[in-house]
């Protein structure tokens, strides 16, 4: 294990993770002693439009993957339209590799609640929902208790802190469907239906929950808001890069000495993050990695100096996604890894769009054949063709997410596929797995 240099250590930006060091910060009294609910008091003292402008000025972009400017999204909500407005927080964390929202809700739930109240005030919503992943039971336990506390203290409910502003907040548990992390599928699920994505437009800002104007934001986005309200837009922009401002929680996992959550300014590189994480695990050489979960095209050792911000990763041919970096070494097989991700996408495809539903079924079987030592050269063409027919041909990003590891591994690691086909790599799956293969 190596020690990080002081230059790299200075890239750490403990903002959203800072209270995690206080074991009792989930309790409202402790939270309040640590600057908690000070931002709410400050926010309720200004006009909602000025808050939207503040968030626009901060350059905050969505932390859920797409990186859409948050202030702009809030500004899309039509005001004075006479319709109810809703804030829906996407806490359906499930993108493989991502583990930043669950600890945030577990160890600092009030920061999310405070952000939710401020955001609701800004967009003029009187009802907000936190749609939390069903499996996230401990985070939900803490969050529900925190919501109860916030009601008792008068931060939720009627006439919040004497402002005349009313807000109800409901914590709604999902039931085990990855697709519900997609915002329109989430809305359908919250309305009590199967979680299937909607065709856009109309966008949720116009016709979201119950066909009313709705902002859907990720946990990290909303939890950032109180800090921006307190510290100001200029302070926020002192972290990150010009176009990707602020701190970001990077989830590092896999073949590194110290996996974990590292909050740094946007734009840090994988080389620097690995240094913070104590280097690679002894005996392992970096081979491939996901920049932002398994739905983002894989990158390789040659991309180790790519700035991890929205622009930098896009320039390298991938996506920043959820900054979930799963790090694999020369001892890991990219063909096997891709197969396992595909089984996941196949299972989680909601079935609405034919390319995603059928294509993933087909690709998992082709992979099983290759990994069983029965693959042919033609299988590689079939895979590329199938992935190409899924990509961009489904309502939501799940199909794209499934196609990207296939295309990126075929691009970077074709030799690993050929090694199975030509018998240089021992089969990883038994021929039992071939049942049902074409």
């Amino acid at each position, binding site marked *: 294990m190596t020690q990080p240099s002081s230059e790299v*250590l200075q890239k*750490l930006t*403990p903002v959203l*993770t*800072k209270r*995690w*060091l206080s074991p009792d910060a*989930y309790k409202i009294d402790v939270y309040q002693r640590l600057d908690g609910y000070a931002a709410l008091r*400050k926010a*309720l003292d*200004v*006009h*909602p439009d*000025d808050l939207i*402008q*503040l968030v626009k000025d901060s350059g905050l972009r969505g932390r859920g993957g797409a990186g859409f400017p948050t202030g702009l999204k809030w500004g899309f909500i039509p005001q004075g339209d006479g319709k*109810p*407005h809703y804030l829906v927080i996407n806490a359906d964390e499930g993108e*493989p590799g991502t*583990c930043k929202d*669950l600890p945030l809700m577990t160890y600092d739930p009030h920061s999310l609640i405070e952000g939710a109240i401020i955001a*609701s*005030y800004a967009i003029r*919503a009187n*009802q907000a929902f936190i749609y939390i992943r069903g*499996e996230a*039971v401990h985070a939900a336990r803490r969050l*529900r208790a925190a919501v*109860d506390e916030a009601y008792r203290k008068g931060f939720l409910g009627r006439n919040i802190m004497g402002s*005349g502003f009313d807000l*109800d907040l*409901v914590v*709604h*548990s999902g*039931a*085990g*469907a990855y697709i519900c992390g997609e915002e329109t599928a989430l809305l359908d699920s919250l*309305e*009590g239906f*199967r*979680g299937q994505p909607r065709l856009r437009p109309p966008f949720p800002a116009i016709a979201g929950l119950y066909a009313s104007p709705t902002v859907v934001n990720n946990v990290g986005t909303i939890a950032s808001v109180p800090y921006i309200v*307190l*510290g*100001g837009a200029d*302070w926020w922009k*002192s972290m990150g890069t010009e176009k990707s401002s602020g*701190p970001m929680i990077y989830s590092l*996992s*896999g073949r590194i000495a*110290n*996996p*974990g*959550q*590292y909050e740094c300014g946007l734009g840090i590189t994988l080389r620097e993050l690995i240094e913070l994480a104590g280097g690679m695990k002894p005996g392992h050489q970096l081979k491939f990695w996901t920049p932002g979960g398994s739905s983002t095209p894989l990158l390789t050792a040659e991309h180790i100096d790519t700035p991890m911000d929205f622009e930098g990763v896009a320039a390298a041919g991938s996506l920043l996604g959820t900054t979930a970096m799963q790090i694999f070494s020369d001892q*890991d097989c990219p063909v*096997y*890894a891709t197969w*396992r*991700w595909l089984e996941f996408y196949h299972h989680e495809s*909601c079935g609405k769009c034919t390319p995603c539903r059928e294509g993933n079924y087909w690709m998992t079987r082709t992979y099983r054949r290759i990994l069983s030592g029965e693959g042919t050269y033609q299988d590689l063409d079939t895979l590329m063709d199938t992935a190409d027919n899924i990509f961009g041909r489904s309502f939501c990003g799940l199909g794209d997410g499934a196609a990207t590891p296939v295309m990126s591994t075929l691009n970077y690691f074709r030799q690993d596929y050929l090694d199975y086909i030509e018998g240089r790599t021992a089969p990883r799956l038994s021929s039992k797995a071939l049942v049902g293969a074409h």
Partner: protein
Amino acid sequence: MTDTNIDFSEAAAPLVEKLLAPALEIIARYPAGRERSALLPLLHLVQTQEGHVSPSGVAFCADVLGINKAQVGAVATFYTMYKRRPTGDYLVSVCTNTLCNMMGGQRVYDELSEHLGVGHDETTADGKITFEHAECLAACDYAPVVTVNYDFAIDEATPESAIALVEKLRNGERPAPSRGARLGSLKEMQHQLAGFSDERDGALADGPAGTPTLRGVTLAQQHGVAVANFNPDTPIAKTKPAREGGNTGNEVKK
């Protein structure tokens, strides 16, 4: 919705006495006219009694929401956490998604499966344990992970630690999980999933966060790294008064 004058079908009848009151409480959380939003929590609720979504459970949800059984069934079959067959006291899930898989999760799954003598989505003959492989459980920095009733039970699991855990569960112990509250039964967990607080003493407290969760922030603390120039009193530019006559929100009558 306060109308309790619901005409329950014969199929739903066994659940009405125990579940009607909490069901109405759940429905009341959602805006008037949007009762169907309560369907997911209601399906969790019926699992508190039966451990799975039975035809009675489907009928109960349909009757209480005034929708038909096909509409409920379509939703119940879509989501993984609604079980279609009776389950054991404990649901043991091993993550076998790529990262956990390659860090040893597949070996944990295979050996535990052999030890229990059941495969994915199957229950042991003694009715204690339902076993499954799970997709990414959002704890990759602790890989491979095993959950029991969705609470993180073992971090950096090995086949040995997983087998030891299930043996404790089968012996009637309720071991402390690696993170989270002490384990209850799967049916008890469904009560929380339906949106009710965990009222058990000490359910919320579980000590500090795990080492991987705190790695970055601990490094920063050890080396005195903080973000400079944070002033919580930084003024917000005001272009208009905070309140223009009363409530700033669009009034929503509940």
